[in-house]
Each structure stands twice: as structure tokens, then as C-alpha cells.
């Protein structure tokens, strides 16, 4: 399609959803959140992303509803623009060019055509709150340079600024100060908390602020977990405050309910606290939110709350503190130890998620599918605790088995290891713990792999450990009297000269197992567990091992710490070729012979794609990222792409995703990210009034296509006849009352005619339209096939539909002619 376009590295989803407070629409139907350079619109009921508002060229830093039109949304960005959106249609209405980097955005109801933004002018840490007048011109792009200064030396974070009752004052906190600017009096009052030097109050500094919507009351959150409620602050002398203290660590965010009757606070405790009547003893909790609460927002209608969490999650919470929806992005706040994997069943990307969890992340919809709790222990957020860490995971047997390894190392000598094997349960569509093996090895497990050969009858798993052994685990009858319980037991323990086992890999057909022992690679027969041969290159410890696939299955690849990439021929038991390359990631493509290797040097990371049979790479891309690449994975495409250019052919069947040290998930693409995401958003656009439920995706789409084809409304009873319903002649026939119908002989020819193909009636310009339509339909039904249990073969069904469609088009004109005849005939009667 677009082979001229060069392949480039793009960010693919997984951007922060919790960067700023989420904003509710006026009717609480939608929730908006900034996500990288985009603004995402989610439905609060279905958790689906309805729109992605694209247009900013840098990080979006603030969003607010337009106070004078609740169907519009303002957004500001580091690119120095404020954009006004129609969020229902996902249309950019206007762009205001401000010129400064904008760090936060605030709107106030009475200030009609102006907004407040945070900018920094000279020094890096000095931020100012300014009022921007947004001029009213009809043009798309307007310069808004009229800035009036409000407050200086404020905090960058929008959590540290709050507008008070009816926008009469603005409160800003920073360090140990609370500044209140009164718009009417044009005065600033500043309150300092008792000495910052005093050790007892050293953690007194402000973290966030919120203003009561009805009363003159400011709530401020502090590092020591206290919440202070300030009153009488229009008087420098008579001001007073109350303390509310429940949080033991800093208060991350505060929000008043719409009426001001309750105050919400959240912090590291992962608990949302609701203080009613601002009374210390009258509080409600929503505990176990999974990760620390970073932001809290309240819907203007007052029925929903929303919390953003550090694990890239947005929770929509009902007024009575029931969680009603969870929007989960890619969890990124932990180090990734398991690497990137693809779940063969869901095609989801699998990696470490929340502490002790595996996350299943859908790359297509940029959404977390679900979390699998591996450790199954309540996580206590305490920096001093040594946590159990999920270090290894592997899928086997086409996604039917999952093996995980967790470890906890209190001291060097006290290692706690646990291996768990999970079976996929079709009924519950999830993994169920089958076998738990404590201390499978005496030392760290370095590698874990399943034998994924189709012919192997018993599932086999191999673990390699620093204790010098590799162990083969097989699924056996875990006999109880019903003989239907199965479990994993150790079948074989292998070692090689007391070297540490550092890696293991099965060949594609499962007949051979390669285990690396530091510098030596050993090849074992998987039938008899006999040592077949060894390879030793004396080039440092082996880091990665992998067998070639398909036509290259006779090759074994390995890369060493000294930066040598070796390829051994298993038939000749000799080194085929070697290259000097400091490989960080080596990933074979499961659908082709290709192997991707990412090397690292101080300048950046380079990608090499090659076939093991040839030492010459197929494709090289230098400097894919400046950072070190930690993990990579090939993701099979649903629909093969068709790059004709030889260099890009490796991308036809699979896509390569990789994760850098700073945990940004990147991929190679020719299409821009926007283009990739449009199909889903367009589908969702079509029917705004309908709530988008998963059920709607299954059934609603059918109906939608039919709606497009037909101008007339369909009778629901006719749906039972899936083919004939579309023919207008038959419709007419069935709808007309019997006593006004012409004779059967007249109708018969008409009916037969309607079933005939009439090529000549089609106009020339209609054809291309239809073709594109067809393509799209077939595309859609292909996707559908994954989720629905369509009885018919989709390909043929689409074909049939096409025929019917063409027929009906031609027949309509016939029918129109017929109608005239018909009516005159009735009149004559």
C-alpha cells in the first residue's frame, strides 16, 4: 500500500493516563484525560475510549470544559497552544497560539472568554499564573498574546492551584506558603506554616490545595499527611485552620464534592478518604485501590468521582464509594523483569504489571485487558519492605500453560523462590493455579522455557538456574482416585561441570534442547535427555540463545557478553559464522526465519534483522532510540501487511515492539499512530446516542452496516430472513396489502427479474465506491471473526452480501418504475 513511505519508530500507546486530573463532561457520560500528546475521551459506563483528540504537537498539560459551552473542551500543551474541541464529534474548533510553554490550564465560570494558564518565563523553576484573553475571531488559528499576570512564584503542578467560590479568589501553595489572591480586592495574602527549619515541622510543606465550592474555605494537603482547612483567610490576622489527620504519608490530592459537603483525599495508602462535614471523626474509606492515588476529580453533576493512580489507571467511583469503572493503561511504574511476551490466546502483550501481577495489555486498543495476580499477597506500600518480585514468566502449549517464577531476597543467603504453573481455563477464560513449587532450584532461576513443538504429547518445561542445574518439568497424572488431576513434576536434572546454567531454549520441533552453561552451549536430546554435543566459543558468557526457525532450523544462535554473535550449524556441529555485535535483545520471529537483534553502544541502539542462514543482515536501522533497549518481541499481525520493498518484508507477518530503559514502548511503523487508531474511533462515532457496550460491538455493528445500505427503515420481524430482506421488490410485495396487489402473474416476472443480475444498470462512478466499501466490510468481518461465533464462513458471507447488495441497487430503479405503474393501476381501479 504505502511502500514508498519509510519505516520509522513510533510510540505505540501506553502513555500516561494519570499525568493530570481527569475531567468529567457535564452529564458525567464521558471522562477526559490527557495522554501524551493526545486527549482521550472515555465513556464512564463502558470504559471504552470514544475519541482521541489529536492535534497538539507536544505533551498536553491541561484540559478543562469550556464554562460557557459544556460541549466543548479546552486543552493546553507544552507546544504553546490552547485548543478548543468539540469532544462529541472529536473536532478541533479553534487553536489559540499563546507562545509560551503552558503547564496547566484553569477555567472560571464568570471569566467568559479568558482562561488561566501556568507559564514559566525565565528561570526554570519560577512559574507564574497568568490570565489569557481568548479573542473571538472566526478564524481557526488565533493569536492570543494578551496575558495578564495573576500570581508569581507558584508551583508547576496544577494540584497546587485552586480557584475558590465563584472564582472570587485563587489559592496557590508552594513549599511552606499558601498564597490567596482576591480578584475583587486585587490583593494577595500569604500564610506561612510554622517554621520550616523546625525539625518537628520539617514535613509540613504543602502538596496540594482545593477550594470549597460554596464557602470561604481552603483545604490544603501536606507532606506529613495532614489536611488543613483554612478559614477567615481574608483577614491576615484572624485566619484560622483545622487539621484533619489520617494519612500517614503525603496527601497526593484533594477535592471537594460539588456541594462542598464532603472532602476527598488520597495518598500513598491506596485509599480514597471521604471526610464528611470536614469532621475528623466522620470519614468514609474506599480502600484497596491497588496503587497510590495521584489525582482526584469530581463530576460537575456530582454523581461520580474519579481517581488517577500511579499504576496508570483511572477509576470512576460512584458517589456512594463504589467503583463503577476502571480504565487501565499500561502499567509502567516498576522494572520489567519478565520481558515482553505475547499471550497466544489473546494476542495481548504480557509483562510485569502491578507489583506481583502480570498484565495483559492489548496493543490494538491501548488498554489493559486484565491483571493476573501471581504473588497473591496484599501489597503493602512501604519503601523499607523487601517485596516478592515476579522475575520470570513463560507461556507454553499455545497459551494453555503459564509458568511464573517469583523471588524474594531478604539477604544474599536467604533466597525465597517459588515457581507456579497456571492452566488456562476455557470456561472462566483465565489462568488457574495448577502447581506451586517452592524452591525449584537452590539459586536464582536464569531462564525458563516451554517446549512448544506441536508433536510433543506431554507439556514440558525447562528451568535453568545459577545453582548449576537445569531441570525438566513435565505434566503428569497427579493421581487422585478420579485420575483427572494433573500436576507438574521434575523429570530430569541436568548439569555440566558445575557451571551455572544461564539460558535454555528448545528447537522449533522440540527435539533438541540447548542449555548454556556460562561460556558453553550444550545440546540435549529431548527424548532421552542425553547430552548430544557442546559448543564453546570462549567469548564470554552466553547471554541469549535461540534456534532458527522454518528453513533455518538447523542453526543455533547465541550472543555473548563480549559482544560476539555466533551461529552454529547443528548438522555439522560447527560454527557457521560469527559477528561482532553487542547484542542486548535477540528475538526470533515466530512466523518467519527472521531474527531481530538490537545492539547497544553509547551512541544509541541499532536494530539488525537477519536470517541465521546468512550472515548478512536483511535490514539495519541505526539509532532506533538513544536509550538502551531492554526487551523486544515480535507480535504476529492479524492481517499480513504487504511491503514489497525487500528491506521491509520482515515486517509483513509480524511487528516488532521493544521497550527501552525508561519504559517507553516503541514499534516500527509506516503508518502514523493516528491512522492506526482511526478505525475504532470511527466505528464508535457512528451512533452517539447508543451506549457502547461490548454487546454492541458484537451485534450493533451488523445493524450499522445494514443501516448504511438501506435508506428505508427495516422492520424487525424481517431480520429473520437475512438475504431476502434486502430486496426492495420483495419488501414491497410483502408490505402492500393483499387487496391492492396486482395479479400474481404480473408479480412473478417482477420477482424473478429482481433476482437476476443486471450489470448494465450500474453507473460507472458507483463502482469504485463500492469496491472500497467491500474491502472495508471484509476487513471488518475478519476482525469480527475473532470475537463472534459466526456459523458461516465469513469470507463467503461477505461475498453473498455483496451480490445481494448489487442486485438491490439495480432493482431499486426497476421498482421505482414499477411503482408508478402500480399506483396508476390502483387509481384506475
Amino acid at each position: 500500500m504505502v511502500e514508498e513511505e519509510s519505516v520509522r519508530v513510533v510510540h505505540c500507546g501506553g502513555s500516561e493516563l494519570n499525568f493530570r486530573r481527569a475531567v468529567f463532561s457535564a452529564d458525567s457520560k464521558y471522562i477526559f484525560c490527557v495522554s501524551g500528546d493526545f486527549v482521550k475521551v472515555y465513556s464512564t459506563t463502558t470504559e471504552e475510549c470514544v475519541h482521541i483528540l489529536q492535534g497538539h504537537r507536544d505533551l498536553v498539560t491541561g484540559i478543562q470544559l469550556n464554562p460557557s459551552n459544556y460541549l466543548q473542551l479546552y486543552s493546553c500543551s507544552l507546544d504553546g497552544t490552547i485548543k478548543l474541541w468539540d469532544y462529541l464529534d472529536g473536532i478541533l474548533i479553534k487553536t489559540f497560539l499563546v507562545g509560551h510553554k503552558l503547564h496547566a490550564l484553569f477555567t472560571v465560570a464568570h471569566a467568559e472568554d479568558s482562561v488561566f494558564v501556568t507559564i514559566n518565563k525565565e528561570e526554570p523553576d519560577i512559574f507564574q499564573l497568568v490570565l489569557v484573553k481568548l479573542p473571538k475571531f472566526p478564524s481557526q488559528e488565533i493569536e492570543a498574546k494578551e496575558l495578564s499576570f495573576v500570581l508569581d512564584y507558584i508551583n508547576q503542578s496544577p494540584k497546587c492551584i485552586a480557584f475558590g467560590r465563584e472564582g472570587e479568589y485563587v489559592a496557590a501553595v508552594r513549599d511552606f506558603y499558601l498564597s490567596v489572591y482576591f480578584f475583587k480586592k486585587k490583593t494577595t495574602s500569604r500564610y506561612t506554616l510554622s517554621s520550616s527549619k523546625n525539625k518537628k515541622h520539617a514535613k509540613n510543606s504543602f502538596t496540594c490545595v482545593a477550594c470549597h465550592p460554596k464557602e470561604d474555605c481552603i483545604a490544603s494537603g501536606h507532606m506529613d499527611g495532614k489536611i488543613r482547612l483554612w478559614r477567615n483567610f481574608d483577614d491576615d490576622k484572624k485566619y484560622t485552620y483545622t487539621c484533619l489527620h489520617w494519612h500517614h504519608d503525603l496527601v497526593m490530592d484533594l477535592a471537594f464534592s460539588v456541594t462542598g459537603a464532603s472532602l476527598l483525599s488520597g495518598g500513598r495508602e491506596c485509599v480514597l478518604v471521604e471526610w464528611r462535614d470536614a469532621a475528623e471523626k466522620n470519614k468514609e474509606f474506599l480502600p484497596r485501590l491497588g496503587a497510590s492515588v495521584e489525582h482526584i476529580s469530581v463530576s460537575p453533576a456530582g454523581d461520580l468521582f474519579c481517581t488517577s493512580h500511579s499504576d496508570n489507571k483511572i477509576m470512576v467511583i460512584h458517589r456512594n464509594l463504589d467503583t463503577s469503572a476502571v480504565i487501565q493503561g499500561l502499567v509502567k511504574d516498576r522494572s520489567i523483569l519478565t520481558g515482553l511476551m505475547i499471550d497466544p490466546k489473546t494476542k495481548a502483550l504480557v509483562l510485569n504489571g502491578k507489583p506481583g501481577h502480570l498484565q495483559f495489555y492489548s496493543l490494538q486498543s491501548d488498554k489493559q485487558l486484565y491483571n493476573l495476580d501471581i504473588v497473591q499477597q496484599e501489597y503493602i506500600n512501604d519503601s523499607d519492605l523487601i517485596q516478592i518480585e515476579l522475575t520470570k514468566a513463560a507461556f507454553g502449549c499455545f497459551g494453555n500453560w503459564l509458568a511464573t517464577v517469583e523471588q524474594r531476597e531478604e539477604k544474599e543467603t536467604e533466597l525465597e523462590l517459588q515457581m507456579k504453573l497456571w492452566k488456562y481455563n476455557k470456561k472462566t477464560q483465565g489462568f488457574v493455579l495448577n502447581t506451586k513449587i517452592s524452591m525449584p532450584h537452590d539459586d536464582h532461576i536464569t531462564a525458563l522455557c516451554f517446549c512448544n513443538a506441536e508433536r510433543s504429547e506431554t507439556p514440558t518445561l525447562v528451568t535453568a538456574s545459577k545453582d548449576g542445574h537445569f531441570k525438566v518439568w513435565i505434566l503428569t497424572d497427579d493421581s487422585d482416585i478420579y485420575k483427572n488431576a494433573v500436576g507438574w513434576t521434575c523429570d530430569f536434572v541436568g548439569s555440566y561441570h558445575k557451571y551455572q546454567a544461564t539460558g535454555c531454549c528448545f528447537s522449533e520441533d522440540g527435539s533438541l534442547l540447548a542449555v548454556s552453561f556460562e561460556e558453553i552451549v550444550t545440546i540435549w536430546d529431548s527424548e532421552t535427555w542425553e547430552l548430544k554435543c557442546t559448543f564453546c566459543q570462549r567469548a564470554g558468557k552466553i547471554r541469549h540463545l535461540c534456534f532458527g526457525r522454518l528453513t533455518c532450523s538447523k542453526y543455533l544462535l547465541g550472543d555473548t557478553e563480549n559482544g560476539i554473535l555466533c551461529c552454529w550449524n547443528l548438522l555439522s556441529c560447527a560454527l557457521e559464522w560469527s559477528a561482532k555485535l553487542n547484542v542486548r535483545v535477540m528475538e526470533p520471529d515466530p512466523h518467519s526465519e527472521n531474527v531481530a537483534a538490537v545492539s547497544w553502544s553509547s551512541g544509541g541502539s541499532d536494530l539488525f534483522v537477519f536470517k541465521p542462514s546468512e550472515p548478512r543482515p536483511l535490514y539495519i536501522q541505526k539509532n532506533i532510540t538513544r536509550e538502551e533497549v531492554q526487551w523486544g518481541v515480535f507480535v504476529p499481525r492479524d492481517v499480513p501487511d504487504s511491503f514489497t520493498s525487500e528491506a521491509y518484508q520482515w515486517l509483513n507477518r509480524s511487528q516488532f515492539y521493544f521497550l527501552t530503559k525508561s519504559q517507553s514502548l516503541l514499534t516500527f511503523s509506516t503508518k502514523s499512530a493516528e491512522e492506526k487508531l482511526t478505525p475504532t474511533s470511527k466505528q464508535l462515532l457512528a451512533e452517539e446516542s447508543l451506549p457502547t457496550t461490548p454487546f454492541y460491538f458484537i451485534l450493533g455493528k451488523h445493524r450499522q452496516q445494514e443501516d448504511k445500505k438501506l435508506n428505508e427503515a427495516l422492520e424487525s420481524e424481517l431480520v429473520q430472513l437475512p438475504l431476502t430482506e434486502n430486496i426492495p421488490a420483495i419488501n414491497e410485495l410483502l408490505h402492500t396489502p393483499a387487496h391492492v396487489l396486482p395479479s400474481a402473474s404480473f408479480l412473478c416476472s417482477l420477482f424473478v427479474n429482481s433476482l437476476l443480475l443486471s450489470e448494465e444498470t450500474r453507473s460507472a462512478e458507483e463502482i469504485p465506491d463500492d469496491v472500497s466499501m467491500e474491502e472495508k466490510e471484509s476487513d471488518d468481518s475478519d476482525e469480527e471473526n475473532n470475537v463472534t461465533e459466526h456459523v458461516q464462513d465469513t469470507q463467503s458471507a461477505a461475498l453473498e452480501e455483496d451480490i445481494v447488495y448489487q442486485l438491490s441497487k439495480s432493482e431499486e430503479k426497476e421498482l421505482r418504475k414499477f411503482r408508478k405503474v402500480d399506483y396508476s393501476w390502483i387509481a384506475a381501479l
Partner: protein
Amino acid sequence: MGEFKVHRVRFFNYVPPGIRCVAYNNQSNRLAVSRTDGTVEIYNLSANYFQEKFFPGHESRSTEALCWAEGQRLFSAGLNGEILEYDLQALDIKYSMDAFGGPIWSMIASPSGSHLLVGCEDGSVKLFQITPDKIQFERNFDRQKSSAIQKMIVDRQYMGVSKRKCIVWGVAFLSDGTVISVDSAGKVQFWDSASGTLVKSHLIANADVQSIAVADQEDSFVVGTAEGTVFHFQLVSVTSNSTEKQWVRTKPFQHHTHDVRTVAHSPTALISGGTDTHLVIRPLMEKVEVKNYDAALRKITFPHRRLVSCSKKRQLLLFQFAHHLELWRLGSTVATGKNGDILPLSKNADHLLHLKTKGPENIICSSISPCGSWLAYSTASRVFLYRLNYEHDNISLQRISKMPAFLRSALQILFSEDSTKLFVASNQGSLHIIRLLEGSFKHLHTFQPQSGTVEAMCLLAVSPDGNWLAASGNSAGVHVYNVKHLKLHCTVPAYNFPVTALAIAPNTNNLVIAHSDQQVFEYSIPEKQYTEWSRNVQKQGFHHLWLQRDTPITHISFHPKRPTHILLHDAYMFCIIDKSLPLPNDKTVLYNPLPPTNESDVFRRRTAHAFKISKIYKPLLFMDLLDERTLVAVERPLDDIIAQLPPPIKKKKFGT
């Protein structure tokens, strides 16, 4: 400063009684405090919170209510069913009157001060009219007749409302008709008195809320809880431009460990007291005009008078308790050591005598003669004199009976340095001089108060040569009497602040006077004028840190060999003023630590000033010089006091 061997005495087992009631008088800026043993103390808040007067307690008189009425008249009522009025001049009880309603639980004066209302055990409320010299029963309100006074009625009415077994500990009736109640469920509740409905409820504690006090302006009030927390509530306007106001709980103060039994609200401060015996005065920052030292928190624990007297010759200490006296002989050591060493005792301190008083009255004052063979104490109705005989280690006590009738009660008792004379300050304002003979005594003379004044003298000092006697009351100046000629010698000019300690220096007969505002004067008795040094001090002024000390100087003494030294102490420091050295100014360090020995002499001389202060011993109840090289310091650590109190309400502390 010189090196001293210090007897560090920690066996004075004194526990101040818990505070039961406080009453603040706005007119005179004085605070009346009653304690659980019936003692009533008057603090002068204008005079640096000095405890200027006290009325001794009585076993059968437990005070449950205390109030000021008609200006500066102080009334108390208690469980014996009596209403008492105190004579603030003569430091005596004016009269007591039975209310005939059983134990009295509450008492309040009408805002005009003309009437007194008491709530009795039998459920009746009795109204008394305050006449110029007495109170007179006027009428009785029964429980049913709810029309006239709402205070107690509201109290009863809501008894059963909030919770089963909930006790309303206090109510306040505001002029706008709001009733505020505090109860044992930990709630502060606002009621509309017209409709009898609950308006708002604040749950503030897990334990009882025991006390409430409203400011005169009715824009703020304070409550005390059994957890030791004091909460401040303020009437705050809802929005800056509306007249609507709401009561908001603002600041909690945790200065107490035990029940806060009582609170008071002065225009500028919150005052609280309770079982843990501290009187806490917390100034309200927003009401303080200048943020100076007066705006600091005050915590008063120990009485501002001496409870310890000392016999230098025999190394005896006499400790005064409410109902007994203890006589101890100090231990001794033969060991020597360098500065800062703790020396082992070769002979432990001896508890020689435990003298219990007869009758229910508390001891007002006590004294042991310098030679150790005389002991005297006084209760509110009698003065007791004992002769002590020492035979080796045995001690025998002989009471001198037939005290003269005019010696009814003494506010201060003092022996002359040679133990031949006894000076007694009676509460009538007169001073009696009694000559002590072996086993008997003889009344020598009585100095009558100046005509028209009945002010009691509470501080006495006698010159070591026995010629001069200085006596001081609360307000008028210090009178100096010539004991030889039995006549008034002179009167030191009156000063605005009460005297806290007096002493006459040997040889020079200079009278050293300490006042509650931390000023120290030296007055030459023979020359009838302030000494040159004192004038210099006044000219230059004291160091600001000296003036900012919390506690008054309670004892002054002199070094027999170093005439330029004055030794004085308060509860938190011991100081030797060396009159030969230059005075410190505000730039010099007042509390300089002991100069390091390796420093050059130049530096030492440059930093040396007249005030040598040691803060090693605290809280210090008494310190005196036994001989040239020996000091005795009586300490009472606060932890020891708390250990003797009932355990406080256990609160779960986070992280424990």
C-alpha cells in the same frame, strides 16, 4: 562561679493536686484555680502569671464550682453543700453558707453579678442574691418549673437524647438562643433552645468531653476532653461577604496527658487544667497584638512558694505536704572527684520524721530553725511549734502547747538565724515576734499593720544579725522593721509587680527583692535607698532572656565568704549574680556554658558577665547553700509526678 558539692535531692515526693475548676476574671485579669484538695489559687495574669494568693484546702471541702461575681468577689461551692466566699485581702474565708440542697455540682453568677445560681444534688436550682457583704437565699427552682432559668433545664432535658448512659458534662447558653452541650459520648452539640432541636453535632473525641467555656464575645469557645485534648471552636463567616456564620472546630491543643477537667476562655488565651496538675495558658495568636514573649504558651505546674526549708547546721530538709511534714537528714560522702562527677554516698539520706497534722485542714506554711531544734507549721486555724531533741541518731519531738490565742493562723513562719526568735506573719496583717527559750516561748512584740490596711504579709526575711525584719504583702511595698527597737524602719517604694522572694544580705544588710516581672532590686536598709549596683542594673536593664523566663524566683540566698554574690533560683535555673562583674547586654550570651578551661583567659574575661546560670537541675523546687562549698538542690522530675497519677486514657498511636 566557683565549684560546689551539690546534694541532688530527688526524694521530695511532692505531687500537686489536680486542677478541678478555673475561673477567669476579666476585670482584674486574674485567674482563680481550685484544686482537688480544695486549695484555691489566684494567678495574676498581668504580673507574669504569678500565683499571688492561695487559700489552703480542707479535706471535707472539695470544690466543684468556682466563680467570680460582682467585680472581684470570689465564690466557690462544693460537695459539702456549702457556698464559700473568699476574702482576697486577708487571704481568708469570709463565710460559708449551706445551700441545703445536698452537694453542689455547679454554680454560676448572673452576667450582672447580682445573683448566684447553684445546682444541687437533689435536682434543685437555687438562686441567691449577692449583698455587699454576704449572699442571701432568694428562691428555689424545681425541676418542673422550667420557665425562668434555662441552664440546668436544658442540661436535664437532653440527658437521655443522644445515647444510652450519656452524661452531659457541661452546657453553655449563648445570647442568640443556641445551647452548646458537651457530653460523655465525645460530642459537642449545638441545640436551638426555642425549638429544642439539634442543630449540629461534632464528634471530637473517643472519650468524654468534660468542660466548656465560651468567650465573652461569644465568637469562640473551648472544650476539654478526657483524652487531654483541648479543642477551640470559632464562629466563622461562611463567605466573606455574607452575614451567615457557622461554628467551626479549628485547632486542637494537646498539652495535657490526662482529663481536662476545666477550661476558661480569656479574651486573649485559652486556659485549661485537669488531672495532670498542669495549668496551661495558651494565648490565641490572632488576638495578640505584638508577637512577643507574652504570646508564648505557659505551663504552670509547681506552686510559686517555698515548700522546703532547710537547717544548715544539721543538714536537715523539711518538706511540706498538704497534710504532713517530712524531715530528712542529707546523706554524706567521703569521696572526691572532678567537675561533673557523681560521688557515691557513704551514708544515705535519713527519713527522720513524718509529722501528720491533726484535723482536716491543709498546712499553709512550715519552717525549721537554722539550728534544727525548732519546727513550726500552721494550718488555717492553728499554729504548731515543736522542739526537736537529738540524742545520737534518735530524735524526739516535743510539742510546745499553749500557743497564744492571737496566733490563730500564719501565712509565713520564719526563724532568726540564731534560732532564738520566731517571726510569724498572721493573716490579719500583723507580725508577731516570739522569743524561743528552751522548751517554752515568750511573745515579744506585734507589729500591727498600717492603719486601714488589712493586707496579709506573705513573705518574710530576717537579716543574719537579727536586727532587721523585712515583710512583704501582695501590692504594697516591702516594710522593713527594726527588731532591736521594735519599730518600722522604712518602706521600700511600692512596685507594680508582686514580690516573689526576699532576702537580707549579711554584713551589708542589703535587702534583695525579686519581683514577678523578673526584676531584681537591691535596697540598702541602713541607707534607706537602692544601692549603686541596683541603680546601674535598672539603668542598663536586664538581659531580654532573663526577663523572658517563665517561673518566678522563689528563693534568694548569699554566700558567707563572697559578699558580691547573690544566689537565686527559679524552677528551671540556678543563678549566681556576681555584682563585681559587668552586666550582660542583649548582645552577649546569657546562658553561656561553663567556660572551657583550655580557652585563653582573655576570652573568658571578655565573655564573663554578672549572671552565672546553671540549668542542670530542673524542675528545681529549692536550692540553698549549706556551707561555703556545698549546695543542696531539691528537684522534682515531672515524670515522677506523672508516674504517681492515675493512668491516662490509652490512645492507639499510629505506628506502634
